[in-house]
């Protein structure tokens, strides 16, 4: 049962990702991206990463995707929901990427992965919180500064000339 759900979610994720990159309607791509992100969150759940899954939905779906849709709206004269956009060098790109994928696939199947089994934890929030404020305090602080910088930078950039 869980396997079936996993494959359904996986298929959903991959297919909507393909839709994102192949579709010609920008808003549709954005909506397909929504499904990909949800699918990814689902995969996280399968990977016992409840906190990351939650964050994925909060930040990606609630933040970044909204931002992307705002971007689409701000950069197009909106007459309908169909905002078409073209692709380029799809033939060469497709061939190269296909072969790239083949090699990736070969690499990940051939590689002797060391797998350590573990039991499912009750929750990961506590562990992540402790790690963030002990071992990863410095990256945490740096990333927060980075976030602040990005915030200010984005504000300054989008303000225009005034």
């Amino acid at each position: 049962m869980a396997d079936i759900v996993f494959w359904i979610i996986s298929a959903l994720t991959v297919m909507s990702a393909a839709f994102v990159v192949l579709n010609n309607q920008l808003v549709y791509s954005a909506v397909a991206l929504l499904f990909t992100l949800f699918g990814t969150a689902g995969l996280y759940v399968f990977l016992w990463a409840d906190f990351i899954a939650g964050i994925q939905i909060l930040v990606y779906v609630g933040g970044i995707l909204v931002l992307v849709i705002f971007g689409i709206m701000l950069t197009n004269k909106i007459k309908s929901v169909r905002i078409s956009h073209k692709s380029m060098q799809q033939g060469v790109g497709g061939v190269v990427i296909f072969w790239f994928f083949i090699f990736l696939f070969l690499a990940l199947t051939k590689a002797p992965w060391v797998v350590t089994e573990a039991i499912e934890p009750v929750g990961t929030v506590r562990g992540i919180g402790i790690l963030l404020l002990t071992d990863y305090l410095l990256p945490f602080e740096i990333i927060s500064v980075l976030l602040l910088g990005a915030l200010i930078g984005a504000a300054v950039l989008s303000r225009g000339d005034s």
Partner: protein
Amino acid sequence: MIENPMILFPLLILFLPLLSFIIVIFFGNKLPRQGDWVAVGSIVTTFLLACYLFLQMFLNYDPDFSHGASFSWINLGEFKINLGILVDNLTIVMLLIVTLVSSCTHIFSLAYMKGDIRYNRYFAYLGLFTFSMNGIVLADNLISMYMSWELVGVSSYLLIGHWFEKDSAANASKKAFLTNRVGDIGFFIGIMLLYSAVGAFAFNPIFESIAGGQAIAGTTLTIAGLGIFMGAVGKSSQFPLHIWLPDAMEGPTPVSALMHAATMVAAGVYMCVRLFPIFTPSALIVIAYIGAITAILAALIAVSQNDIKKVLAYSTVSQLGFMILAVGTGVYTAAFFHLLTHAMFKANLFYCSGSVIHSMHHALHKAHDHDTDPQDMRNMGGFKDKMPITYFSMLVSTLAIAGVPLFSGFLSKDAILAGTLSFAQHHPEHFLLPFFGFLAAALTAFYMFRLIFMTFHGNPNIKSIVKNIHESPKEMTSPIVLLGSLSFFIFYTLPHNFNPMKDKGWFTDLIVPRNSAVPGSLTANEIAEYAHHAHYLAMGLSLIVASIGILLAYLMYQKKVISAKNISEKFGFFYDWSLNKFYFDENYNRYLYQPFLRLAHTISWLDWEFYDKYFINGFGKLTKLLSTVSGKFDYSGIDQGFVDGFGRASNTVGKLLRNVQTGRLQNYLLFVVAGILVIIIAQAF
């Protein structure tokens, strides 16, 4: 240290004339009276300062007085040159002479040069001249002495050539300068020889190391001494470089006075006196002979000259020969004494002749006579009553130079002759030295009185002139009177504190001869002792020769008992030689200048015809050919083929690569991914 008046005053004496030179040469035209008062004021100030120094010396009466100050001029590790001044009794007396004669010259020139077109320049050069002479006098080392030495040469060049519009003046200044250069080369070689051996330029270290006998001795020292003496030969106009001095009469007469009495020619003698300790006995013999030959030769020439200034010029040469002779025979204080007395009476003689010439000029001008030579004594005569001041003061000086008792020249000449005589007594093989000396003394008396008789006595030769002859203005007569009175003996024999009990004059007490630094030479005491023994004999002899000379002159030119014409015809050969100055100029011209010029012509011909045309031009042609070939190779081979090939290749490749650079970000990204793919494939297989 500089506050000490014994250092400060000499420095002032040294640099005030330089200051006046700078002011007058640059701003003289803008100053009232063309700045002559600056020059005269500064020089009189230096004279007063020198008087103070002299008085100090006279009152303190310290024969060993010596003071010095120096500063480091060049300091290059091992090579050091200190410039400094040395003040001792010798220096002070010399400073007094220089400033006195220079002051008189300045004052005399006020009238003599009035209205000259280069009036301010003349006074500026006088300042420079005095400065350089003071530099020589005060130098405490050979380098600063040499620098001042050359400055004296330059300023004499400028002053002799003051009226450079006249060819003769321009040539005379050139001649003086070049002749001096010949001597100066020797001087420089001597300095460098001494420096290379001793490693010092200052006098005292040089004396010390010569006395040590280790650093330099024997032939080297003799050569160094003779080299240095060569400087004196040039500057003090000794045989064979005496030829410039008579020509230097082309300069203004006050300049002649200055040059002959105190500044230029005195420099050589002063230098010999100052450096006496370095001369070896062999060098001194050479010096003595040069002096003796100069004395007799110049006297013989002076006998037949008719130009009043030429007579005086040759008499100067002759007297300088006396001084050099004295240096050579070791009685160098006598040389200095003669320098002192000679400075006074010779300056005076020149001023008097200047006064005579001045009034002759005026008289001729009034008579509208522009052909008569105002300097020719044959045109004079009977001026005695017309210009009595000039006459009497010139007579006094003539008596002094002739060596008549009670006048200064008697004292100094007597000292020289005594030294010479005693030298010959101890070295009988050199009997010619006193012989020449006494003969020259007799001739001196003769030609000087010939001058007096021809100029002032007898009947006027040209009547039209005499009535316009009159005494010169006060600016000119006052130096004459001052200097004329200084020809009396009393000024040179004043004892210390005017104490009549002393039997020696201040000069003998204050200017004490130093021992020669050369080991094995006679000490100063021995020389003085010998000279003392010869003293009375010399005095008697010199009296006799002087009276003979005066008597002859009297008989020939006053009483005309003996016809000068007859004698000159009888001894026509000698007369010709004397009149033509022993053909020195002609011989130099024939055997020195002309061969040199011919050699130069030949060399320049060789240089041009062969060296330039074939060698240099050949090189040029060869180079041109080579460069054409290499240029062709360079251009068509390297430039066109190689360098431009590189350019073309890069251009082609660039054009090809340009297609890849689409400017599209995603193309690049595709290339990146493809590149990664390639790397992976390469890794995998």
